[in-house]
């Protein structure tokens, strides 16, 4: 009985104690909530802010007595990098332009150009360009006064060739790109290297055979030509750009023969037409500036983001 009495007292004590525990769990006071929420928040902040954690150092480790695992101090900054403004990959590029020759002291040359490129990577393209020089201007009116001065002052004739057209197949490579800001506009740009091979059609302007009977008349001749250059492209939109480029077009050219008629073989007066051209070729380098616009097609493209 004494044992049963003891168990009954224990049961009574438990029954009186349980409602108190349940009541304590069911009644939320504001202070209790703050206390409960505040603790995890502190832990979370401490864990999330690496810089604060590093700055706190050993002083913050007041709680745990066990040695903390070793960590490397990482002082890195995270930068947001803008996507490349205009992708070139698998797009076609059309580029009308005008060309001005820089280094011909005897004759001015103005060309109308058109170029096409296909970008098989974002920085590499294969394409072709075409320049039309003989579009209606009189070559004699494009001559500089240097020709006349040389003729009068040195008694020398200057053999001059006019240009009709040229076409080249090119590779383009874009090693540089960037952006700049003008007031509140940001412009993207890139710089490229270009080079290729093609042809250039030229013919001599008759200088030494004007007075012969009949006067010398030359046909256009086709020469193998090479070119190298560098350019700058500024994106006005994602598909329209302004560009300027420096190009050096090089080819071996044949000029009018300056040997006096009397020393040439063939009929007296005009000589043999096969001797009207100089026997050898001269290396010609036409350095020019080209300015124009490019149109990228299709005009829209999609970024392919890593998953």
């Amino acid at each position, binding site marked *: 009985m004494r044992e049963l009495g003891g168990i009954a007292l224990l049961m009574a004590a438990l029954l009186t104690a349980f409602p108190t525990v349940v009541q304590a769990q069911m009644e939320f006071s504001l202070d209790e909530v703050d206390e409960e929420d505040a603790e995890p928040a502190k832990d979370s902040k401490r864990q999330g802010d690496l810089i604060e954690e590093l700055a706190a150092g050993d002083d913050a480790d007041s709680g745990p007595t066990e040695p903390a695992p070793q960590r490397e101090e990482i002082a890195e900054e995270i930068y947001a990098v803008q996507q490349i403004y205009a992708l070139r990959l698998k797009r076609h590029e059309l580029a009308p332009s005008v060309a001005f020759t*820089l*280094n011909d002291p005897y004759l001015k040359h103005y060309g109308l150009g058109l170029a096409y490129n296909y970008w098989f990577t974002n920085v590499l393209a294969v394409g072709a360009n075409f320049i039309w020089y003989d579009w209606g201007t*009189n070559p004699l009116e494009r001559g500089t006064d240097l020709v006349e001065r040389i003729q009068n002052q*040195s*008694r*020398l004739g200057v053999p001059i060739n006019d240009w009709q057209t040229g076409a080249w197949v090119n590779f383009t490579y874009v090693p540089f790109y960037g952006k700049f800001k003008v007031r509140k506009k*940001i*412009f993207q740009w890139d710089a490229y290297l270009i080079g290729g091979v093609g042809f250039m059609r030229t013919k001599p302007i008759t200088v030494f055979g004007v007075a012969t009977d009949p006067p010398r008349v030359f046909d256009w001749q086709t020469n193998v030509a090479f070119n190298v250059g560098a350019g700058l492209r500024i994106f006005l939109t994602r598909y329209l750009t302004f560009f300027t480029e420096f190009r050096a077009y090089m080819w071996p050219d044949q000029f009018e023969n300056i040997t006096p008629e009397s020393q040439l073989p063939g009929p007296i007066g005009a000589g043999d037409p096969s001797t009207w051209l100089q026997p050898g070729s001269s290396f010609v380098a036409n350095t020019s500036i080209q300015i124009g616009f490019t149109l990228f097609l299709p005009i829209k493209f999609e970024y392919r983001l890593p998953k």
Partner: protein
Amino acid sequence: MMKLVPKTLLRIGILLALALCLVLGDGLREGAGTASAQDVQVSGPLAGATSVKKLRLWRAMRLHVEPFFAFTIGDEYARSLIVGGEARFHFVDWFGIGGWGGYSVGQLDMNLTEEIQSKGFTTNANRLDLPEKDNFPQQIGRINWWSGVELHFMPFRGKLAMFQKVFFDADLDFFVGAAFVGVEERADAIGRPSPSDVAFCEIAGNAMDTGCLESQLARSKRTAIAPSFGISFNAFFHDFLGIALRWRGIPFKYNTGGTDNNKDGQIDSNDRIRQFNNMFTFGLIFVLPPKTKTTD
């Protein structure tokens, strides 16, 4: 002056019309209002933030000292090889003032000079222009030294990625100013007895210069003042080190060939011809003080 025939004008008109159609077609596209460059319209947490943080100030209140090598381009008779230096002080990162100077350490005769020297022909009709073909390189005009003061504007700057590996800061420097150039030309001479039949020249110290041979070698020097302008691409690789690739134009008149260009029978200042003298320069930039500051 080049004249254009009506057919050519028609062709130009067609091309311009096509270009106009292209531009208008682009402008009328739906959504074209947002297709003009790239607007700086940042929303979200970056709204109102500065466009650049920790911008390296390569120029503000700093001195650039730049030794350079240059060569002239587009010359008729001789190309100048120039060694010199330039100093610029910048009050802000986009504006500065500077001075430069160089000396022509070499002169490369152009192919035209060599052609005249080897194939030129002298008669009494052109004796004043070419007294002796072998001496032609000694009669042409040359430029011995160059200097100038210029204002520099750097509206564009940025950074370059090269092969996705090498990154460096770069800017464009537009400059304008005045140049002072040391010109050496053929000295004044008068052809006698007549402009079209010259047998001797009258020059200072010798009124009977037979065949104008002494006149051909007589020289005079002067300082020409001319406008100068150009553009430079600058790249900075270290706190105090960079490179500059510069084009500079200095148009002024001088007698390039030492010849009677206005055909008045005498060599004088009226024979000077306007030349668009321009040069290309490679420079190494040293920045002082050497420590580069950055913005916030």
